[in-house]
């Protein structure tokens, strides 16, 4: 094919078109590179086949960008497909993305550069098959990008396989008997699909079937870009486009095929053209990093006594019970207290489904030195908030260790481990104080009183800082006091629970 037309032919064509009322543009848009270096020996040509719709679509976009003065602001995202090499033509910032993921990438590009023009240019395999999720979600979030969707009803680049937009009965290399709804389903109508979503502001389907429709496409491309320029919202233009090579037609026949076969299946329409809405939701206020990350927050109670002489080198506690008993919180409070008393600390929870149903446990290590394993095989103390935990973990307690058990007495068939056990009805005590939720606080008070591992004053300070519910503050303080009291008055005096675990 001749690459240059004679002046007479051009002149004649221009006149014909002007008579029809079209504006004739026959110079190359400045948004295109002067030389196309994709094909080293044919630098005036694109890599697209003669008669391919991509050339026209590119031209419409390039001209619009030039006319709107957006060249320097534009970031063009090319997909995987025939237009993977769009960056050889568009003299704008270019990013090539993985198959189908252009809307995801474009989302983040736009959010990184909100005042720039971000274009996602995709074919039907890229957008309507592998990238269905990405396009739907980008559209649904109302990303302020523009998507040009070139639909030619086949996979062009890979040699003519079936696309989600392949017509019923249309043969392709992977639908050799024609697309059958019973096997491959129906052509996917992306413009209609996108238009069901709330966020998109502009959705139109156009066709490169004849000059009239190309002019409509030109207007749609412009409008979509103008909407983005004005920060209005997500715009989507589906472009029905000829693929003469794969369809095995000459360029003229291919255009006719778009008009006669594709348009009846994919009707041309403006599916969405809505006024911009002012969204009323607001982002949280921006605050200094130091404040947001709580880097310098002083506790209201200040660090209590960093020089408190702890009686241990390392002290380990396992807290266990039902989910909802405040097992993890009790462990966290102990850990926070240890930290405030200048110790090295670690807190390791059971997590996941265990956390959401049934039992929970956590390991707390308080140490005067750097902590090795945060996992505790043999805790110095087991705080068992229920019977299951007692039965499960009592035998793990270190020889000479201590078990605090939330009940009036031990189960009758319970075999005593090599550890001292104190039973206290923490739930009942908490309930009497006004909230059974304070069970863990009763246990905390008892633990502190019995082991003297950390200072009760630290506990009260930590509670003040960490428990946000005002209603619980008083109950918690009372619960800690009641726990301490129980140890003081009953255990130390020997009135209620004996080391053998039976109430006296």
């Amino acid at each position, binding site marked *: 094919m001749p690459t240059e037309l004679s002046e007479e032919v051009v002149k004649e064509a221009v006149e014909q078109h002007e008579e029809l009322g079209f504006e004739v543009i026959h110079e190359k848009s400045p948004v295109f590179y002067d030389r196309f270096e994709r094909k080293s020996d044919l630098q005036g040509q694109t890599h697209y086949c003669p008669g391919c719709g991509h050339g026209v679509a590119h031209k419409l976009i390039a001209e619009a960008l030039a006319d709107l003065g957006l060249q320097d602001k534009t970031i063009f995202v090319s997909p995987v497909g025939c237009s993977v090499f769009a960056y050889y033509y568009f003299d704008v910032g270019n990013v090539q993305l993985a198959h189908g993921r252009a809307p*995801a990438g474009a989302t983040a590009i736009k959010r990184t550069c909100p005042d720039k023009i971000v274009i996602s240019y995709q074919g039907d395999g890229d957008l309507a098959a592998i990238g269905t999720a990405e396009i739907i979600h980008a559209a649904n979030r109302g990303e302020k990008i523009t998507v040009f969707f070139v639909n030619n009803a086949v996979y062009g680049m890979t040699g003519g396989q079936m696309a989600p937009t392949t017509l019923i009965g249309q043969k392709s290399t992977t639908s050799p008997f024609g697309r059958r709804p019973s096997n491959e389903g129906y052509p996917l109508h992306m413009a209609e699909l996108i238009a069901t979503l709330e966020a998109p502001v502009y959705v139109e389907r156009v066709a490169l079937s004849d000059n009239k429709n190309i002019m409509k496409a030109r207007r749609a491309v412009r409008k979509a870009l103008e909407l983005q320029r004005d920060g209005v919202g997500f715009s989507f233009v589906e472009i029905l486009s000829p693929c003469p090579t794969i369809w095995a037609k000459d360029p003229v026949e291919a255009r006719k095929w778009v008009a006669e076969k594709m348009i009846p299946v994919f009707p041309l329409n403006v599916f969405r053209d809505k006024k911009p809405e002012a969204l009323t939701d607001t982002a949280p206020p921006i605050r200094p990093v130091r404040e947001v990350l709580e880097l310098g927050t002083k506790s209201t109670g200040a660090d209590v006594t960093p020089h408190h002489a702890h009686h241990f080198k390392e002290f380990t506690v396992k807290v266990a019970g039902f989910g909802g008993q405040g097992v993890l919180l009790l462990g966290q409070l102990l850990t926070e207290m240890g930290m405030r008393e200048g110790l090295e600390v670690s807190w390791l929870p059971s997590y996941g489904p265990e956390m959401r149903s049934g039992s929970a446990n956590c390991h707390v290590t308080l140490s005067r030195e750097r902590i090795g394993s945060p996992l505790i095989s043999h805790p110095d103390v087991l705080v068992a908030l229920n019977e299951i935990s007692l039965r499960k973990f009592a035998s793990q307690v270190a020889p000479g260790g201590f078990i605090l058990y939330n009940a009036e007495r031990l189960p009758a068939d319970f075999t005593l481990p090599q550890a001292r056990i104190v039973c206290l009805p923490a739930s009942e005590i908490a309930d009497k104080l006004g909230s059974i939720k304070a069970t863990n606080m009763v246990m905390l008070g008892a633990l502190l009183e019995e082991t003297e591992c950390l200072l009760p004053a630290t506990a009260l300070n930590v509670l003040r800082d960490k428990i946000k519910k005002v209603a619980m503050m008083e109950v918690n303080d009372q619960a800690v006091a009641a726990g301490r009291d129980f140890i003081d008055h009953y255990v130390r005096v020997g009135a209620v629970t004996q080391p053998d675990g039976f109430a006296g």
Partner: protein
Amino acid sequence: MRQLCKGNVAIVKGAILAGCRAYYGYPITPASEIAEAAALYMPQVGGTFLQAESEVAAINMVYGAAAAGARVMTASSGPGVSLMQEGISYCAGAELPCVIVDVVRGGPGLGNIAPEQSDYFAMVKGGGHGNYRNFVLAPASVQEMAELTMLAFELADKYRNPVIVMADGFIGQMMEPLDLEDREITLPEKPWAVKGTPQTRANLISSIFLEPDQLEAHQRKLEAKYQRAQQVETRHELYECDDAEVLLVGYGITSRVLRSAVEAARRNGLKAGLFRPITLWPFPSKELAQAAAKVEKVLVVELSNGQMVEDVRLAVNGRVPVEFFGRTGGNVPSVEEVNIELTQRLGVLA
């Protein structure tokens, strides 16, 4: 001032202090707190948090933000990171700096949500397609979750490459004191990025090199970068190695158990030492070979059926016997178990 902080949350605090203002991700146990913390903090420091529709979308958002010059991160766990592998390969191919956190859980398949270190191969040896490397950092404490995340951003920008922070369910879920200072940072210039400006108009971010010679040249360029990194970016920690007769090797949560195991062994009269790789790639092979040169045996402990042990064996190169002990499924060996392995299986005390 020290604050008690969860490992997963510390990741985000470190990221923000490193100047990261962009997080794109998808929740998964046991990494969800990272997304939750990012959702809480990012908008308050003027950053972006976006919950993607999938890990596939998330990593491609990371690609997009990185292409536009942002310090950007995502986080996930095993199955989610598997979905990201294609995108990580693209980031490496397009030389896009980004940080990906893998809070490793049990696999293969859906596995479970308990801690494992079974993603070592997937993270350290690649996982995605093609000739590329990830930098892989292995934190062993909450403090390191933050610090190594900060380092990850530095390395990512320095080498224009993805950097993985590979933690495990326990390091992610545990709480420890975290001591961080807000500091002034200068973000590096990224003249190669595509920012929609006249200065960056000529820029192209792409991983496609259609001509064989071009692609080979590109890969050689990447390889040269990786060789440079192997010379200068290895990091490790030694504990009680000076007079050690047996060397324990482990990273992440395992290294914590091994530290206690070294102490226990020494209390029993066995001179054990610990070598902890902090960079899993580049692997501190030279340093490990040196540490191993003085011992009689090496015991590698992992929450896997033996993955890092291959790199240890390559480093030691047959000069010392290298034994392996692994637990999986979410089982983390206890100090006692490790010491039984040391004293009985290796027979060092016998």
